[in-house]
């Protein structure tokens, strides 16, 4: 499904990503974790083809991202909690726009199903500016899943969401993955997201993968009771060199 080999990215004097190998199989749900500045967002942006790696290659659904970005992007959906909705459009118009960008001539039945999945059908006629941040996040996820991608990439999908909305997001994602066999690659700082949704975690520190496996295996390998313990341990070890670093250039 997703095969990233030897990804390297330098921003000026900082190496944001340093030789990341990441494979996500069909239907697999993977969390990409790590402290701020570990290289998560840069890795995701390279996987999405928005940032080009200095070294390495990404293949999605068999398409080489460097040469067949558009074909590869048809297999992928992406949403991030921090991204706004397109302004001056109603929710249905917005979803219709993105459905058509994914090559769906009449996205309306898929829009209805997507809104229903996250129990927000009543928002179809609302303007993007009328929505709360939680509602915007949900609409963003509906947009990302409209074309039933084989790989769903989510950056902080539950950031700033109320617990009940976050739970609805987790439920909707699991439903999608089970029903459609969608693979999931997500970042999150909320370990309850990770434990409930993902079957595999990949920890990054200083741009390198330092742990990869099922959550309980990774936690025990670090001698911690849970993923939060591993996260804190890595964050502490990240501090001296990484405190001044950022994922962003």
């Amino acid at each position, binding site marked *: 499904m997703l095969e990233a080999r030897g990804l390297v990215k330098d921003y000026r004097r900082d190496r944001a990503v340093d030789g990341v190998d990441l494979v996500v199989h069909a239907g697999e749900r993977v969390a990409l974790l790590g402290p701020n500045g570990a290289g998560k967002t840069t890795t995701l942006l390279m996987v999405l083809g928005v940032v080009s790696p200095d070294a390495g290659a990404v293949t999605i*659904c068999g398409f080489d991202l460097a040469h067949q970005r558009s074909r590869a992007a*048809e297999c992928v959906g992406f949403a991030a909690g921090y991204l706004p909705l397109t302004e001056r459009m109603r929710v249905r118009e917005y979803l219709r726009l993105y459905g058509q*960008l994914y090559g769906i001539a009449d996205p309306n039945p898929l829009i209805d199903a997507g809104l229903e999945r996250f129990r927000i059908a009543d928002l179809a006629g609302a303007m993007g500016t009328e929505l709360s941040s939680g509602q915007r996040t949900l609409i963003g996820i509906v947009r990302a899943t409209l074309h039933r991608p084989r790989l769903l990439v989510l950056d902080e999908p539950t950031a700033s969401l109320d617990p009940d909305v976050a739970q609805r997001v987790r439920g909707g994602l699991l439903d999608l993955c089970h029903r459609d066999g969608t693979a999931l690659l997500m970042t999150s700082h909320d370990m309850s997201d990770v434990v409930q949704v993902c079957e595999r975690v990949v920890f990054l520190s200083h741009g390198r993968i330092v742990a990869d496996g099922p959550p309980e295996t990774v936690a025990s390998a670090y001698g911690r009771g849970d993923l939060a313990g591993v996260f804190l341990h890595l964050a502490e070890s990240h501090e001296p060199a990484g405190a001044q670093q950022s994922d962003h250039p």
Partner: protein
Amino acid sequence: MTDTTVTPGSGPNPMTGRAKSWLRMRAIARRHAYVLVRSPHRLFDVSLWPLVDVLLFGSLAAFVGTSGSTPAAKASGYLLAGIVLWHVIYQSQIAMSTGLLEETWTRNLLNLMVTPLREVEYLGGVALFGMVKLVMGVGVMVLGALAFFSFDTWSLGYGLVPIVAILLVVGWAISLLVMGLVLRFGTGAEALAWGVMFVLLPLSGVFYPTKALPSLMQPLALALPTTHAFTALRSLVDHRGSDWTQLSIAAVGSLAMLGLSMWFLVAMLRTFRKRGYITRYT
């Protein structure tokens, strides 16, 4: 699910590549139509400002024309025809440049860049919508010139067609240049979207032969395809028919300009991806 174009987990759907491209271009054009319709102040670009320009230059033309001399009558025609045709470049350039700027202002660039939308499809979409704005803006000017100053732009004949086509290409070329600069330097470069037009306007001899320019500026003016297009326009205003020599130079120049601008935009897009400038808009 009733939709048959997407099956669970299928990824790419069965539409042909060309049909998908056309669908995406129309989607982008529609997206910008919503922006125009739902932002009344933007309608000024295609209604009020063109009308103000035609009133300003039309009044100047009427004033100059009152002297009754032959050169004055000519200058009067140059002013009105010049401003109407100038808006072909202006509208096509501004529509495309602000298309990309709108994505940066609203932090929508990442949303678009992760979709299968190709760069050329995006440009096609904004150009398509730009044509609608062009028709609206220039239409207002043509009607204004006719209503207020009895200047019938259509009386210039079919010779206008190649001139409009050349000016359209130049407008697109400038917008690609501006887009490249915005990708490279961020929204700080947006002032160029408007500013570059004010450099081009006097140098292109929109209202006068470039012989009227300071001699130092004349070689620069002659290097611009717009100068030759407006020289060809004055030939029509003077009832001398189409000046094919000037039109040929303008056509070759505008295509060369378009090619260079495309090369520049592609290079800037490569830099944008390489340096991770997307994080400016997230």
